[in-house]
Every structure is written in structure tokens, then in C-alpha cells.
């Protein structure tokens, strides 16, 4: 089996377009995951026992089942109820919902890791809920959340090829379509791998730097 550069040249422009779709899906999906995750975290921390438990189990259900099946669900089931989504929109919604269950844990852990003394101090200062959150809790809770949230962005990027299963023409699907119509597998599959490495290795390095930057300093413990 010989490597053919002609195939590579033919494929590269198409893959570039595919990469753009992949990046779009990643960012839109991540935005959705960040927003929904915050909402889910607040619901899980609700004082109402029923709300907290229900949202916890819904979130666990989504987290413990495969994204691929969830994508099929959005893509095949919703049209039966009169909701027609384009493959891209269905894919992005699937990604966003699936990873919101992960990001919600990041938010929850971040807020819960702020020592109780800080809550008590805000109370002692007679701060209201808004002041407590915006001046005391969030400024301490947000920095440790940033590295894990960045890591989920990379994870989501690597999950986007699943969108090809519901006919989104992203990076991976460009390669499979080309493979299936030309009976060439070596170059397209290798190129997809290389594209992923080119993006995710530097991204992982950046995330590691971010983690070092936001490392809690001198808390006595840890």
C-alpha cells in the first residue's frame, strides 16, 4: 500500500472546510455546555429536595449514556414530534446537552470548594445574596473552574467526529465520504488523525499552562 501525495492534495482543501465545521460545532457546542451546565449546577444545588434530586438524576442519565445514541435520538425521534433540526443543529444540541452534565459538576465543585467561613463572613458583613455571590464567592470559585472547562473544550473537539453518524459533514465525515467513493483509506484516515493531533496537542499544552497559572497558591492544605 503506497502513500499517494496526489490524494493528499485533492483532499486537503475539502478537509480544511471540514475542519471549519468541526471547529464551529466545538465552539457552539461548548458555549451551550457552559450555559446549560451553569443552569444545571444551580438546579442541582437547589434548596428544594425534589428539584435537586430530579436534576441530579436527569443529569446522571445523560452522563451515563452514550452521546452517539443521544445524537440518534435527537436526529431520528424529534422529527416524529414535528421538530425538524438540521444535522448540524441536532449535533450541536446533543454535544451541548451531553457535556453540560460534565460542566455542571465543575461549577458545583468550584462553588462548594469555597470554604464555609467565606459564606459566614459574608453573612456577618450583612451582605445580601447578590453581594455574597459577586464579591465573595464567585471571585474565589471561578479561577479554579477555568482549566477543567478548557479541558472539556478539547474533549468536545475530539467527540465531534460522532456528528458524522448523523450526516454532519465535518472533518471526519469528509474523510469517510472520500474513502468510500474512492476506495482510498490510508491517506484520508491518516490525515484526519494528523489534523486532530495538530489541534489537540497544542491545545492540551495550553490547557496545562492554564492549570499551572490558576493553581491555588498557599492554602496551607493540599
Amino acid at each position, binding site marked *: 500500500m503506497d502513500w499517494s501525495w496526489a490524494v493528499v492534495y485533492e483532499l486537503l482543501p475539502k478537509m480544511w472546510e471540514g475542519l471549519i465545521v468541526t471547529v464551529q460545532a466545538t465552539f457552539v457546542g461548548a458555549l451551550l455546555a457552559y450555559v446549560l451546565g451553569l443552569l444545571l449546577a444551580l438546579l442541582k444545588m437547589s434548596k428544594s429536595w425534589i428539584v435537586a434530586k430530579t436534576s441530579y438524576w436527569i443529569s446522571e442519565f445523560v452522563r*451515563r449514556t452514550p452521546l452517539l445514541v443521544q445524537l440518534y435520538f435527537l436526529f431520528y425521534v424529534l422529527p416524529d414530534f414535528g421538530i425538524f433540526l438540521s444535522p448540524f443543529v441536532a449535533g450541536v444540541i446533543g454535544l451541548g446537552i451531553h457535556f453540560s452534565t460534565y460542566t455542571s459538576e465543575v461549577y458545583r465543585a468550584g462553588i462548594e470548594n469555597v470554604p464555609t467561613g467565606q459564606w459566614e463572613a459574608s453573612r456577618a458583613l450583612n451582605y445580601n445574596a447578590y453581594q455574597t455571590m459577586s464579591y465573595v464567592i464567585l471571585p474565589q470559585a471561578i479561577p479554579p473552574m477555568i482549566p477543567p472547562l478548557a479541558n472539556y473544550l478539547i474533549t468536545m473537539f475530539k467527540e465531534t467526529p460522532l456528528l*458524522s453518524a448523523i450526516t454532519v459533514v465535518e472533518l471526519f465525515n469528509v474523510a469517510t465520504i472520500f474513502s468510500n467513493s474512492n476506495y482510498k483509506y490510508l491517506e484520508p484516515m491518516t490525515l484526519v488523525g494528523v489534523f486532530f493531533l495538530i489541534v489537540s*496537542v497544542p491545545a492540551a499544552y495550553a490547557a496545562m499552562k492554564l492549570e499551572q497559572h490558576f493553581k491555588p497558591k498557599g492554602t496551607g492544605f493540599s
Partner: protein
Amino acid sequence: MEEILEYSPLLIKGTITTIELTLASAVLAVIISFVVGLSRFSRLRFVRASAIVYLEFFRGTSAIVQMFFMFYVLPLFGVTFPPLLAGILACGLNLGSYGSEVVRSAVESVGRGQHEAAQALNYSIYQRFRYVLIPQAVPVMIPTFGNLLIELLKLTAVASLITISDLTFMSQIIRVQTALTLEPFLVILVIYFIISSVLVWFTKWIERKFAAGRHTITSKGA
């Protein structure tokens, strides 16, 4: 719903395949995690470097890409795996990369004094890891390994795309044959949820087993 019951033999077969795939690749992933994770402590530069290359390669490219590569590209070089084996290898190699980081960081988390004490006792490298470091590192690894096990189960759904007749594959068959959409996907999501919940309980059980008499380690968390 009755129509789905007619397909229960298919569902049972799919469930068994999914469980087989999960367990076999879990075993492979654990072996790889330890081999690669411990290689990071090697005195030989070459061993350390190959561990990092493996890690970055399998963590940096997407799992589906690896699976397709194994299923479509390797046969071009005369290496042909039956689909199930290709699925096990791809899932195991992929999760092994994440697992190796768990092993590495758990061993690093064992207190410095323990490393030094083992050295002071004139333990060989083997003895140091076997009797001092690993027994203390394992309880730290278990919660994260538990999470990875769920990720592994979800990853096996992707194997349906390389013609393995697991649960996800069966849902597609039922959808095509019955033209039903909601029922097959819902049933399959519930089965996945049950399997992963069992895995979660299993991890919690092991965690408690290891926690007995070791609160000093587990109370500090991973």
C-alpha cells in the same frame, strides 16, 4: 412497545456484546495504564519518551478515528482484525492513555517521605513500587478509574460504526425494521443507563473496600 419486545433476543444479544466489549477493553486498558503509567518513572529516557508519544497519540486523536484506522487502514498493510477485536483494541488503547495519566499522578501523589523511606530501606526499584508506592496509590486511582469505566462503556457505542453488533447497532436495526424511533432508542438508553449504574455501584463498593482502615489516604481525596 410490544413490537420492541419481539426484538428482545436482539436486545439481549446486543447487551451481551456491549458488556463483553466493555469488560475486555477495560482489562486491556488497566494493563496498559499500569505499564505506560509506570514507564513514566523509568530511568531510561527512551522508555519515558515512548510512553509520552503513546499518550499524546491516543489522547490527541479521536477514538473514532483510531477505530476506523484499525478497521479500514491496517488491513491494507496485511493486519486484519475481526471487528470485535478491532473494537476491543481501539477502546482499550484509547482509554489506556487516559488511565496511564491516572496511574502516574496517583503514584506521584504518594508522599515524598514514602519514596525516601523505601530508598532508605535499600529497597530495589521493584520492591519500592510493589510494596510501598503502588499499594498506597491504588486507592487514589479507584474513583477516577470508575469514571473512566463509564467513559469506556460509552465509547463502545462507537464500535457499532465498525459493524460490531452491540446495543447501539441493534437500535439501528430495530429502527430500520420497525420504522419506530422513540421506543428503540429510549429502550437502549435505559439499558445503557442500567449497565453504567451497575458499574458506578461496583466502583463505589471497591472504593469502600479500599477505604477501610485507610482513611488517611482517602479522606484527602484524589
